[in-house]
């Protein structure tokens, strides 16, 4: 409601991007780093996102997903991770040699493990 009202004045209040390290959950990050070490190499250039097949149909964004993982923000990750088609275009454009497809696959695995309390 407050957002709409703010709009009347020509302003938009962005959702807070404050990272709360107390609520950050590193389990997924640790799991992904262990299973796909090349995850660490990503320097957030966004090449993958520009090439992404799924990204042409929906708001999926691999770079953002990687950021979520790194920050330990699990909630937005849940939905994000389901959208990738594993097509592999991102793999070919990544300048850092991140095994992007496996990052997605392993993250999805981590989430479902988290839901089953196995992580």
């Amino acid at each position: 409601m407050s957002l709409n009202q703010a709009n009347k004045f020509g302003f938009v209040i962005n959702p807070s991007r404050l990272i709360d390290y107390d609520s950050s959950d590193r389990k997924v990050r640790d799991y992904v780093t262990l299973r796909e070490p090349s995850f660490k190499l990503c320097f957030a250039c966004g090449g993958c996102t520009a090439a992404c097949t799924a990204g042409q149909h929906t708001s999926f964004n691999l770079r953002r997903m990687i950021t979520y993982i790194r920050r330990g923000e699990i909630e937005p990750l849940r939905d994000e991770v389901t959208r990738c088609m594993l097509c592999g275009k991102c793999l070919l454009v990544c300048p850092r040699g991140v095994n992007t497809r496996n990052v997605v696959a392993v993250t999805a695995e981590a989430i479902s493990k988290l839901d089953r309390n196995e992580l």
Partner: protein
Amino acid sequence: MNSEFFITPFNLGLYFILIYSVVRSTVWFRNLSRSDKLRLQRGFFGRPFMDSLREIFMESLLHRKIFRKNPVLGYMHMSLAFGWFLLIVFGTIEADFFGEKHLNPPSHAIFFRWFNPEHGAEGFARIYNVWMDLLLAFILSGLLLAVIKRFIPGMVGMKKRTRHTWTDRVALISLWLIFPSRLFAESFTCGAHGSGSFLTGNLGAALASFLPAAEIAPWFWWLYSLSLGIFFLLLPVSRYFHIPIELFLIFMRNSGINTGDRSSSYTEVQTHACSSCGVCISVCQMSYAAGINDIQSVYFIKGLRNDRDIAAITANCLMCGRCEEVCPVGIELGPMRLIERRQGEREDGTLRLAGKYSLMRKRSSIEKIPTQSYGYLVREEPQKADVLFFAGCMTHLTPSVIVAMKKIMESAGVKYRFMDEKGGVCCGRPLMLAGRDREARELINHNSDIIWKSGAQILVTSCPICYKVFRESYYLDATVMHHSEFINLLIEEGSLRLGYLHKKVVYHDPCELGRGSGIYDEPRAVISYVAELQQASQERNMSLCCGGSLGNLTLSSDKRALIAADAARTLTMSCPDELITACPLCKKTFVQSTKTKVSDIAELVAAALPRPAVKAVKKRATRAAVKATGNS
């Protein structure tokens, strides 16, 4: 005389293995699907049966395929299998013919010399003896090779040898002991009685000259019987189980049973039919180019057999299919791996001895839990078209291929619609390769819907990965063509006029197009039409994988680069002007690892189009093209 104790271990082993085989094959048969049962029953009466018998003779006894690959290894297998077979056959005839009565128990044939020590002094029996000795010598020569191979693998031309478990080792030792102990047992008996032919007779005489032959002989008969008995007892839990199982496999395959997409008795039979010959190791690029030596098919199969947790091995493979191409047993290694990839998580159930004897493995068969979902895709109404062009996602990363295809189709006057011009949806094959079939179905349904609604008669794609899945997993009315096939068709029907490029080129068969879909000739026809095609040292069904394969989810980029560099080096050995491929992924991968210019077949053809845009020959090419495929 018949009450010799030493035959007991042999008899025990023999009757155990006979009963076990019958029970186990019955269980397998019962677990076949209804249609497969029917196939097998039909196969038993008719041509498949004769084919199977011939194949068993050529492959299981003579080992023709291994022979072709490696004559020394072939001789080794043949002398052991065929030699032993002949020894049993002629031994049985001998016992029947020369023994005191007909229809003897098997032990009489096996221990014939013990029961008839004086036999073979003159006449026909003497000649028969020479023959039996020859057979024994034949087997022993093969055994000698086997021993050499075990300790110095390089001598027999094997690059790598396979690793063994302890049951394998005990079985191996007992197998190795069988024939030497027979040699000495017969020789000592012959030496004591002054009988025997060139081998047993001479050796026997020599040994008897300084040893108490009559006393020593029983010990070797014991050893002979024990090694046979132990070998038979361990057979079902050792790698040698493949010998009887391969016969089942041949019967099943010739009856028309194939792996399909779920585990069954047939996958179970295939797991046990692997002879651990190691042929698949030496062709695997993961091994010789990337130095990864624990994922090859032989280890994959061994893991299945021992019920290990092999998820990592299963995933780390290019799915290039080279190993399947050379496997002398003909195991469908690709489909087997895919079935395993579909598996959800499972425990590592490293089998104890008793478990290995169990009749039917209960590997869990829970499918992976779906993690992806594509509810966000919007179905659009496509425009009608006779020819639908689907570039494929990868092709969008090589825009020059799309430009070339557009030029070619325009020049030939093809009226087409570009299905994924504004970015399409993945064909689903990468998901299937990752063992996510259920999610792939969503994409397949989405794309199928568009293709059906477009009313297309021909679906042209530039990506072999898409090509394979369109052909195999989509239910379509349209004829699916890879662009190399389509260009070939345009050339053949005369709607494409091309010049000749004075270039020497070499062609790389993409895995999914060549081995995966059996398209070898059309690309070559197209290339030879516009340029000079050189031969590559590894081509057609043995072509290399570029290393970029989407079949491998876990392989790191530096390992991929090693494979790509090695493949590019092999392909450009003859210093061609251009390296031609027919897959955007191969192109992308090779570009980074060779100095030679890499082009797609479409780009090569586009370069051969006449320069000034002459009026395209509009002979209603589309109609003709449609008619030519017999689908109008």
